[in-house]
């Protein structure tokens, strides 16, 4: 708001405003960006929409079929399964990532030694190529891999004798494998964003709360959480949009299997377009994805009034 005001008053003072030459210069400045925008975003969106209303593999004649591709998707069990898997990823990943990231950030926001070293380590997976992460997790989660070594050891040492799960090879656990990889990869990001927010909470508020006899838990509940709720909201929406578009994790780690139990929607879009050569079906699916993301973001935006606290309002 303020910035708009400053710029318009400054423009009034600018003796050269509305100089036609400046208009032409402005268009030249915009031109490279706008040309690319027009082709790779504008044209692309139009094409995608158009293709989704036609019957068209990749070559040959196109036939307008209206909403047929969308209707077929709604009857496609694999579409529902991949959507279900994607919802599973969102529901499992987003809350866990926010919770663990917050705990890490709260820990690192204390006056203790070695904070930079901890932060260095927690953030390391974020800069890691996800493909490499997926490959190591294939090894760690393999039936005879290190994680099951630990589980088998624990199961016999504790006398409980429970079986080690087949993480990647069973329909029951394959999604959890993807969840673990995603948490490992992205929680450091959540932690760093939370840490920045925590450092913005004024110390006076904590001091005042302490003077009033608030316990550490009460300070967290009633001072910290409301003040960082805009960050929570931002992270929530960002992670949700990211989880909607999971691709590389299941693609490299499980190939969507076994029996499509870890197939994500974006992976199904990819397979429809580039393995089955059904550009029409894949485009329709991409638009379903857009609508999902749009609706979820809209709902979140509505709900934020209930729990997000903005100091200025």
């Amino acid at each position, binding site marked *: 708001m303020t*910035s708009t005001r400053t710029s318009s008053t*400054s423009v009034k003072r600018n003796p*050269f405003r509305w100089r036609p030459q*400046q*208009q032409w210069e*402005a268009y030249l*400045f*915009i031109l*490279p*960006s*706008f040309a*690319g*925008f027009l082709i*790779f975003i*504008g044209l692309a*969106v139009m094409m*995608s929409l158009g*293709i989704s209303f036609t019957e068209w593999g990749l070559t040959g004649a196109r036939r307008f079929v209206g909403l047929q591709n969308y209707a077929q998707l709604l009857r496609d069990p694999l579409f529902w399964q991949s959507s279900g898997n994607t919802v599973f990823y969102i529901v499992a990943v987003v809350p866990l990532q926010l919770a663990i990231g917050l*705990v*890490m950030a709260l*820990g*690192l926001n*204390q*006056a*203790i030694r070695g904070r930079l070293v*901890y*932060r260095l*380590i927690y*953030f*390391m*997976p974020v*800069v*890691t*190529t*996800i*493909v*490499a*992460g997926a*490959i*190591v997790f294939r*090894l*760690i989660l393999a039936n005879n891999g*290190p994680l099951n*070594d630990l589980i088998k050891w624990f199961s016999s040492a504790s006398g409980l004798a429970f079986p080690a799960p087949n993480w990647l090879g069973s329909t029951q656990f394959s999604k959890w494998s993807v969840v673990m990889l995603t948490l*490992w990869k992205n929680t450091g*990001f959540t932690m*760093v*964003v939370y840490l*920045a927010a925590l*450092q913005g909470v004024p*110390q006076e508020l904590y*001091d005042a709360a302490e003077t009033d006899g608030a316990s550490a838990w009460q300070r967290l509940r009633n001072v910290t959480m409301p003040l960082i709720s805009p960050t929570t909201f*931002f992270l929530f929406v960002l992670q949700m949009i990211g989880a909607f578009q999971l*691709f590389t994790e299941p693609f*490299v780690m499980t190939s969507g299997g076994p029996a499509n139990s870890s197939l994500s929607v974006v992976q199904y879009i*990819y397979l429809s377009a580039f393995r089955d050569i059904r550009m029409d079906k*894949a485009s329709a699916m*991409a638009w379903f994805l*857009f609508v999902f*993301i749009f609706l979820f973001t809209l709902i979140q935006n509505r709900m934020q009034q209930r729990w997000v606290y903005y100091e200025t309002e």
Partner: protein
Amino acid sequence: MAATSAVVNTAHHKAPNALGLPARLGLHALLIVFGVLMLAPFVVMLVVSLIPNTAFMTRNFSLNQFSLANYVETFQAVPFGRYYLNSIIVTASTTVLQILIASLAAYAFARLRFWGREGLFVLYLATLMIPFPVTLIPNFLIIRYLGWYDTYFALIVPGLFSVFSTFLLRQYYRGLPLDLDEAARMDGASSFRIWWQIVVPLSGPVLATLAIFVFQGVWNEFLWPLVVTASEEMRTIPLGLASFVGQYSTAWNLLMAGSVIALLPVLIIYVIGQKWFVKGITLSGMGGR
């Protein structure tokens, strides 16, 4: 930015409610557990990359098993040099050109007046809502139509136009005092000179931050290169690594050596420039707010 966070840090260190010894030990224990969880995959990667597959299968970690033999074999089996070259070419040119193009547009959006400015900017922003899978298929078709399939052009050109970078830089440019432009115009400077000699030099930190963000994204990109390349000569590192899994699905020693080769340079740069990486990835991520 650095100054403010430094102030915040010292304020915390001097806080009267510093933790007692038991609390500190408990906190360290918790933080170390997290650290072990985050580091474990890297340790597994490194250890398995240094021993023969048979030694790993039998969990024989005696010192005489360790050698660099897997690395030699991996380099012979896979053209990692070529993958690196491709990744460097694609990432460097995308980062530089994307920021240049975004900076030019952002300057006009922020500091020049022209017909249609607000409408165009709203149009730009509206497309931020569109997820990547929507434009994936048509962009593949456009690339094929242009005859760019399986070339550097396919890997680079569509990545040069970023609404997000434009938006981020516009926000920053709006914050610079307009008096600077006026004074320069009085002296007869063109808009181009104002952009290049005043606006760009004043935005060094934000450009560096954005550059790290773009670099990181392009370097790790997987889906787009997967769709528009076919030959081994055009593979970037993530793609080369993924195809390596296809060929050697159970040769864990080689796969881990390949992963270390793919990760090590970026991790070294990260450890050296930690502060900048963290800032680049998070601040840019928050700019979308």
